[in-house]
């Protein structure tokens, strides 16, 4: 693999040579082979050699499935990212709309697959659209969050320049912010690439005729471990290729080094976007309910499975069994939280930690990168049995799976953030021959903070979704399985109540991260709070 894996221009941190990337790939394959041999009797992991054989034997089938899923994933990738760009543009051009836009975007992102999948299938019928839409839904939010950070990562002097010619936020967006946000956009796209592909695969769970997801379910049911991992390998290869391709484009497009951003701190009494003010939360909640109600009215979905806010309110507070519903939700939520929080934190730490390690030891990047992308690209249905076998069905296994899902976006965002340290600042470091650790501590980490917090914010709903998917597909407890069970028993009141709860909880966590973020960024990146 020609893994010039570090995606961003940073003349200062050496790109890993092809050598180390190759070494990384070799180590990965070797470790895999060893692990597969150790677990030979467990029917969970196929060795690379077996996988290769399966790929070769089934190459035409795989090619056809790949073509379908890739096309859907690419369409979803394009749609999702375009939506993110449009939303970010609107949020920036009309700052007052920002909290509503990000709030609604968050809410939509929080909708669990179990709830959205069947609805999309009914809305779109048997074609590829549910897959495309699910792929788009899987990516638009991470891109949006990073893009909003990038759009604000602008020295105030550039904006002053625009204003001095009487140009408002739109021109600023076009001439300054858009370009300044490109590095962050590319990070977003790199995170989106595997996510879109996975989204398309999972979309096939809603009843598709063909594709990688269909084959995966089939192979798992048939205990065809070789084929299962062949599919996972192909998915991973596609994701790595997409990631590298975006990195390659980024290196060609990004010509400007990160600037020193001197922004005066925001005035006191300021109340801005995000989730800082309770008023915003209320506004967003109202907007979400209205949007929900309007979506139902417009789509004309059958109220049997498309429940409205009034139904949920009724189910939670007025119905005869409301108390039981609430109790079931509460206990499921409680179970979920026990996995969620540790998983979230572990994923965040692992992502940021690996990004730091890669920057401190660029030689390791080549080895770490393929593994990192692979971890994200292998569908959770495939990895779950392996993780469960190694770590057990208890809390650790679930936590590890959640952490896995949080890890990759955090890693990419942080890696990118670490590279946003301005050259002038690094020059100062260099003139004292500051070691990598000092540079990290005093220049790179502070420069990383906006990206890190963006990652922390987008990881909140991502981890919630992850835990529910793990519960649904693997462990069978908590809210995830409650939702799946409700769907199979047509208890759509319960399902939608759970959805609302999950969304509300995600929003709350998001707001909590936002509070910490505001405190930290007031010092380190006040422009982010403007």
């Amino acid at each position, binding site marked *: 693999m020609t893994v010039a894996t570090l995606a961003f221009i940073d003349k200062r941190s050496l790109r890993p040579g092809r050598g180390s990337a190759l070494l990384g790939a070799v180590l990965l394959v070797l470790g895999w082979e060893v692990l597969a041999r150790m677990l030979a009797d467990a029917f969970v992991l196929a060795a690379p050699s077996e996988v290769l054989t399966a790929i070769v034997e089934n190459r035409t089938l795989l090619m056809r499935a790949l073509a379908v899923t890739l096309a859907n994933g690419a369409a979803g990738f394009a749609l999702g990212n375009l939506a993110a760009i449009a939303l970010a543009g609107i949020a920036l051009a009309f700052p007052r709309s920002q909290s509503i836009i990000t709030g609604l975007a968050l809410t939509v992102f929080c909708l669990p697959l179990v709830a959205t999948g069947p609805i999309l299938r009914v809305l779109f019928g048997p074609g590829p659209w549910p897959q495309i839409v699910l792929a788009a839904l899987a990516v638009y939010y991470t891109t949006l969050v990073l893009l909003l950070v990038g759009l604000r990562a602008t*020295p105030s*002097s*550039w904006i*002053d*320049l*625009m*204003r*001095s*010619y*009487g*140009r408002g936020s739109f*021109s600023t967006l076009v*001439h*300054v912010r858009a*370009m300044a946000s490109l590095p962050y956009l590319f990070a977003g796209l790199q995170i989106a690439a595997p996510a879109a592909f996975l989204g398309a695969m999972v979309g096939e769970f809603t009843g598709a005729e063909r594709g990688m997801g269909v084959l995966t379910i089939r192979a798992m049911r048939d205990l065809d471990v070789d084929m299962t991992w062949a599919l996972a390998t192909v998915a991973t290869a596609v994701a790595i290729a997409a990631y590298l391709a975006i990195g390659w484009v980024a290196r060609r497009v990004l*010509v*400007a*080094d990160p*600037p020193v951003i001197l922004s*005066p*701190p925001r*005035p*006191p009494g300021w109340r801005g976007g995000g989730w800082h003010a309770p008023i915003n939360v209320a506004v967003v909640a109202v907007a979400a309910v209205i949007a929900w109600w309007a979506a139902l009215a417009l789509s004309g979905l059958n109220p049997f499975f498309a429940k409205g806010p009034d139904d949920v309110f009724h189910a939670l507070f007025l119905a005869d069994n409301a108390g039981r519903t609430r109790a079931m939700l509460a206990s499921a939520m409680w179970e979920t939280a026990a996995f969620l929080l540790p998983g979230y934190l572990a994923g965040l730490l692992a992502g940021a930690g690996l990004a730091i390690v890669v920057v401190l030891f660029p030689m390791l990047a080549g080895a770490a990168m393929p593994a990192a992308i692979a971890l994200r690209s292998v569908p959770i249905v495939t990895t779950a049995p392996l993780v469960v076998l190694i770590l057990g069905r208890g809390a650790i296994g679930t936590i590890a799976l959640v952490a896995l899902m949080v890890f990759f976006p955090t890693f990419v965002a942080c890696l990118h953030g670490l590279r946003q340290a301005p050259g002038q600042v690094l020059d100062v470091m260099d003139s004292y021959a500051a070691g990598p650790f000092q540079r990290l501590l005093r220049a790179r980490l502070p420069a990383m903070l906006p990206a890190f917090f963006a990652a922390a914010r987008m990881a909140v709903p991502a981890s919630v979704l992850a835990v529910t998917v793990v519960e649904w597909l693997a462990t069978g407890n908590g809210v995830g399985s409650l939702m799946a069970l409700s769907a199979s028993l047509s208890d759509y009141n319960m399902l939608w109540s759970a959805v609302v709860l999950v969304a509300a909880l995600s929003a709350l966590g998001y707001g909590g991260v936002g509070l910490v973020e505001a405190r930290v960024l007031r010092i380190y990146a006040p422009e982010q709070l403007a």
Partner: protein
Amino acid sequence: MRADADMPPDVLCDGLAKTFDGGVEAVRPLSVRFEGGHTTAVVGPSGCGKSTLLRLIAGLERPSAGRVEIGGLPPAETQRRGELAVAFQDPSLLPWRSVRGNIELALHLARRPVAAAHVEHLVRLVGLEGFADTRPAELSGGMRQRAAIARALVTEPELLLLDEPFAAVDELTRQQLAQDLPRIWEARGTTTILVTHSVNEAVMLSDRVIVLSPRPATVVADMAIDLPRPREPEMSRWPEFMASVDAVFAALSASMARNSLAIAAQ
């Protein structure tokens, strides 16, 4: 809108004051009228509030008190018509645009047609021939500043605000620029406000020098410079010139000394 759109606009600061949110008082209520079509130099000690004053006039900073009027209207009006240009103290070039791209951007923003020859001419005038397609990261400090000056001039604005435009340029180049550039704005009758650290430069380029006190800025001296135009380098040997320079220096020193005494007395 304005009484006479062809007349270069007066700039009026009326009771203008700025205290930053942190509590730093940068400009203390200050009333000045900068005459239309004239060049006024503003000098004052470092950190006294010159840039803040310029930003207030440009409408980039909201006054804590008082108001700014350009030709009788708020600064936003002049901004809107693209008749304002600022060369900021820090060049503020967009790093992904070449020198030419940065200059042309000003034309776009001010909704002026892009005349390649005009841009080329300015690039040459500020001594950047051969670097029109170079991006800021590959320019020297002085070259960046010169690019920023060219950008401010290219739109031929009614009101030109220059914040220490020649600070990063060597003395000979500076003399050259001080010769060449005023021709442009004088020919158009641009109202120019020039913040500078060089008293010589202030006297050489302006019709009037305003001396500001140490922070918070107030006007401590306001002198007309009655030298014929165009100014020539030789004039710096003229007694009138030297007298003006001395007077500005005296005013500056006096205000700074007062300030030191005030601090010492605390």
